[in-house]
C-alpha cells in the first residue's frame, strides 16, 4: 500500500479563486492511501517545494500528488523536488487544476467538485505507479540546419563558433534566402547584400560548416541526440567539386530566355546559371526544364567551354545519410500568390508588382540596374500607389488571418527610398493600420511621412484598372475624410502577405513536430520556450515559426543555436523511462507489436522457459529496446494477449483513472 501525500496549490488566486482548495485538500485526505494532505499558495516556489520535501521525509511518503497547473508546466520541477529527497521522480503525478479546471470554469461548487475528481484520478494512478529509472543515450556532436537563409546561416555560424560541426541543407542552388533578394534594410537603410554576403562567405569558409546546397531532407529517423537524416542532393548537372564559378558556361549558353526566379521573373537568365554574383557556393546549375542538351540531346556548348570539365549531363539525384544530435529548422517564408486578388489587376498588368518584385526593380543588381522603371514600357513612374495588407489580416479564405508584421516597415522604406531618389514621384500608401513597433521603427515611419512627404491614406484600395494609355486607375476610399479617391498611377505595389515555405509542412511530418493552422511551426511554449519545438532536439529559427523581420530572425537564430549547443555539449542525455515493456510469460510472439512500432524498437528473441512439468522450452518473445522506444504505446493496444504495457501509462493506471473519474 502506498503512502500518498496530496499537495494542493492555490497558484495565487489562479486556482483558489474558482476552486475551494482547502475543501479539495480536506476531501482528498479521506482517499485510501492518503496519509498527508495540505494546501499552499505557490507549490512551485521554493518554500512550496520544501513543504513537499519535508512531508516526504516526515510521513515516509511513497507517492506524491500535486494538484496544481498543467504537468506540461511544472511536472519536471516537482519531479526534481521529490528526487532530491530520495523518492523516485516517477512516483509523482500532477492533477491539472489550473488549465483544465479553474481557468475554464466559473462556478466554485462544480469546479471544486471536478478538482476533487481530478485529484482522485491522480491518486488512483499513483497507487499503481512504479519507480522508473531513466537510461542514457549518447549525443552525436553534429547539428543540422534546414534552410540557408539569414536564420540558418546565423544559427550555423553560432553553432560552429562553439566548436561543433554543422551542416546546412538549402533547397536552392545558393544560400542567402530572401535577404539576398532585398535591396535595403529598414530602419537603417543599409544595403542587405553588404551585410549578408560576408556572412554567406564566412559560412562557406568555416571549416566546421558544410553546406549542402540544392538539397532537400528526404527522411528523418531517430530521436534527440541521435537523428539519422537522409539528404537528397538534387542533380544540378554540374560537378560541385570541379566548378570554379567562372561563369563562362552562362555566357555561352544559347538558351537565354529562362525566367530568372532570383529577379522574381522580371528578366531572363540562361539555362545554365549561377543565381547571382555573390552566390555561395558559386557553382553553376543546369535547369533541366530549359537545357537543350537535357531536353533534346542537342547542344553541349557548356561542356565544351568548361575548362575544368565540370558539366555532367548524366548526373543523378544522390542520397546521403548523416547522423546529427540536434536539428534546427529555418525554412523561412514566401510571399503568397496573388492570383486570387484580381481586384488589384496583378495578373493583368506588369506594372502591378509585389513588394519583393519592387525590391528587385530597385536593386542595383536587379533587372534595371537599380533604376526604377515601369516593367511594361521602361519609363520612369511618376505616381506610385502602395497597397498594404494584401492577404494579411484577412477574414476570408483568400488570405491569411494574421498580420505579416514586416510590410508596414518595408513599405515605409520603399516609399522613402523612392522619394529620396526621385523627388518628382508622388507616393501614396493605403493602409488599414500602420504597425511599427520596434526599435527606431516608428521614428522611421514618421520620417517617411514628415520628411519625405509620403501620402499615407487610411483606407483600402477597391479596384485597380489598367487603362489603354498605360496608366492604372486606382479607386480607393479615404476612411478619415470619407471620400472616394481616384488616382492615376504608373505603378501599384502590393504588400503581399507572407506564408511559411511550402516545404515546411512535409518537413514537420518527417520531424514529428507540430504546426499551427497557418503552417507555422509551433514552439514548445509561446513565451518561455520560443525557439524549441515540442519535439526534443528540434529547434526553430526565423520566420518558419512566425512572421519576423531581420533583427528578430537573427536574434531567434542565435537563440536556437544556443539551445542546440546546450544539447550538443552533453555527452549523453537522459532517456524517457516511460517506454514499453513486454511480459515475457504472456507474450506469444505473434509480431503484432512489431508491425505497429514506428521506431523499430521491438525485436524477437528466443528465450528459454521452464515449463510446469520441469522441462524447458524455447519460445519466441518480444523484446523492446528502451533506448529506441519513444513510448507512444501503439504496441500496447496491438498486443492481443496484453503482454505489452507502457511504463508510466500502464493499462491498470489508465483504467484506475477512468474508474476514479466515472465513480
Amino acid at each position, binding site marked *: 500500500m502506498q503512502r500518498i501525500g496530496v499537495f494542493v496549490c492555490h497558484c495565487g488566486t489562479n486556482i483558489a479563486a474558482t476552486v475551494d482548495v482547502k475543501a479539495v485538500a480536506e476531501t482528498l485526505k479521506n482517499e485510501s492511501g492518503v496519509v498527508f494532505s495540505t494546501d499552499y499558495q505557490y507549490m512551485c516556489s521554493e518554500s512550496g517545494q520544501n513543504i513537499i520535501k519535508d512531508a516526504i521525509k516526515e510521513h515516509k511518503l511513497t507517492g506524491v500528488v500535486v494538484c496544481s497547473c498543467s504537468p506540461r508546466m511544472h511536472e519536471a520541477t516537482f519531479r526534481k523536488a521529490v528526487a532530491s529527497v530520495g523518492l523516485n521522480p516517477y512516483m509523482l503525478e500532477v492533477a*491539472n487544476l489550473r488549465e483544465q479546471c479553474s481557468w475554464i470554469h466559473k462556478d466554485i461548487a462544480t469546479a471544486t467538485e471536478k478538482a476533487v475528481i481530478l485529484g482522485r484520478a491522480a491518486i488512483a494512478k499513483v497507487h499503481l505507479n512504479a519507480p522508473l529509472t531513466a537510461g542514457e543515450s549518447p549525443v552525436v556532436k553534429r547539428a543540422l540546419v534546414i534552410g540557408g537563409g539569414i536564420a540558418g546561416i546565423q544559427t550555423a555560424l553560432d553553432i560552429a563558433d562553439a566548436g561543433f560541426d554543422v551542416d546546412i541543407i538549402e533547397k536552392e542552388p545558393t544560400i542567402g534566402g530572401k535577404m539576398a533578394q532585398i535591396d535595403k534594410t529598414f530602419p537603417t537603410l543599409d544595403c542587405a547584400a553588404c551585410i549578408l554576403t560576408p556572412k554567406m562567405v564566412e559560412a562557406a569558409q568555416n571549416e566546421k560548416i558544410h553546406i549542402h546546397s540544392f538539397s532537400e531532407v528526404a527522411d528523418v529517423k531517430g530521436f534527440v541526440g541521435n537523428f539519422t537524416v537522409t539528404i537528397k542532393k538534387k542533380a544540378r548537372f554540374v560537378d560541385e567539386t570541379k566548378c570554379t564559378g567562372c561563369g563562362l558556361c552562362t555566357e555561352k549558353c544559347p538558351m537565354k530566355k529562362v525566367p530568372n526566379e532570383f529577379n522574381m521573373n522580371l528578366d531572363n537568365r540562361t539555362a545554365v546559371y549561377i543565381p547571382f554574383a555573390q552566390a555561395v557556393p558559386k557553382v553553376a546549375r543546369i535547369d533541366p526544364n530549359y537545357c537543350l542538351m537535357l531536353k533534346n540531346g542537342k547542344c553541349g556548348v557548356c561542356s565544351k567551354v568548361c575548362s575544368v570539365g565540370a558539366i555532367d549531363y548524366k548526373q543523378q539525384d544522390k542520397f546521403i545519410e548523416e547522423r546529427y544530435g540536434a536539428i534546427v529548422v529555418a525554412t523561412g517564408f514566401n510571399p503568397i500568390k496573388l492570383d486570387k486578388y484580381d481586384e488589384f489587376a496583378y495578373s493583368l498588368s506588369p506594372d502591378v508588382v509585389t513588394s519583393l518584385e519592387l525590391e528587385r526593380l530597385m536593386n542595383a543588381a536587379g533587372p534595371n540596374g537599380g533604376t526604377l522603371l515601369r516593367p511594361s514600357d521602361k519609363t520612369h513612374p511618376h505616381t506610385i500607389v502602395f497597397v498594404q495588407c494584401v492577404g494579411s489580416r484577412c477574414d476570408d479564405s483568400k488570405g491569411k488571418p494574421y498580420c505579416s508584421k514586416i510590410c508596414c516597415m518595408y513599405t515605409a522604406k520603399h516609399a522613402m527610398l523612392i522619394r529620396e531618389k526621385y523627388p518628382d514621384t508622388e507616393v501614396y500608401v493605403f493602409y488599414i493600420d500602420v504597425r511599427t513597433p520596434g526599435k527606431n521603427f516608428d521614428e522611421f515611419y514618421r520620417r517617411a511621412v514628415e520628411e519625405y512627404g509620403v501620402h499615407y491614406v487610411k483606407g483600402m484600395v477597391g479596384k485597380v484598372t489598367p487603362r489603354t494609355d498605360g496608366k492604372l486607375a486606382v479607386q480607393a476610399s479615404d476612411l478619415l475624410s470619407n471620400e472616394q479617391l481616384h488616382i492615376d498611377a504608373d505603378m501599384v505595389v502590393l504588400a503581399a502577405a507572407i506564408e511559411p515555405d511550402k516545404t515546411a509542412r512535409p518537413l514537420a511530418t518527417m520531424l514529428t513536430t507540430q504546426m499551427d493552422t497557418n503552417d507555422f511551426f509551433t514552439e514548445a511554449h509561446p513565451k518561455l520556450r520560443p525557439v524549441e519545438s515540442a519535439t526534443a532536439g528540434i529547434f526553430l529559427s526565423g520566420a518558419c515559426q512566425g512572421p519576423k523581420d531581420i533583427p528578430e530572425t537573427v536574434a531567434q537564430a542565435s537563440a536556437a543555436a544556443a539551445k542546440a549547443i546546450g544539447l550538443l555539449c552533453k555527452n549523453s542525455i537522459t532517456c524517457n523511462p516511460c517506454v514499453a515493456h513486454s511480459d515475457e510469460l504472456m507474450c506469444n510472439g505473434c509480431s503484432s507489436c512489431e508491425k505497429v512500432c514506428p521506431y523499430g524498437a521491438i525485436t524477437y528473441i528466443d528465450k528459454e522457459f521452464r515449463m510446469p512439468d520441469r522441462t524447458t522450452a524455447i519460445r519466441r518473445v518480444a523484446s523492446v529496446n528502451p533506448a529506441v522506444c519513444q513510448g507512444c504505446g501503439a504496441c500496447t493496444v496491438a498486443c492481443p494477449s496484453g503482454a505489452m504495457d507502457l511504463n508510466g*501509462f500502464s493499462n491498470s493506471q489508465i483504467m484506475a483513472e477512468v474508474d476514479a473519474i466515472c465513480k
Partner: protein
Amino acid sequence: MQVNEKKEFEPVIVAFCCNWCSYAGADLSGTNRLNYPTNVKIIRVPCSCRVNPMFILRAFQRGADGVIICGCHPGDCHYTSGNYFARRRMTLLFSMLDFIGIERDRTRVEWVSAAEGAKFAATMNEFTEAVKKLGPNRRLEDLRCRKQS
C-alpha cells in the same frame, strides 16, 4: 413526501488527450479562459494510439455517458503514425459499440492541435450538448459499480 426537484442531467464525459497536441490544446483553452462544461474530465495519454478499446468499454461500464478521444491532426502525430492507428481502431470500435446499442454520438474522435485551444473548447461544448441530449448511458453501465448515494 419530498417533491423531487428535477435536476438537469449532467453527463460524465471522459476525454483521452494525447500529450503532444490535444492535451496542450486543452491547456491552451485554459490559458485563454475559454469555458467548457465541468462534465469533461481529461486523461493524459502519450498518444491517441495508447487508448485501448478496453479503456472505453471500462468507462462505459463504470458509468461514463460519453467518451472522446483527441489526437494530433492526421500527418502531425508526434510518433509519426499513432493517430492513424487510433483512427482505425476507433472506427471499428465505434461501429461495434453502435451495434450493441451505444449511440454514435456518445463516442467521438477529434483532432485538436496544440494551437487550437478554441477548437478544443468548442468541441467539448458541442460534445457535452450531444451527450446531454442522449441522456444517461444505460446500455453498458454496471450498476454494481455505481456510487452509493
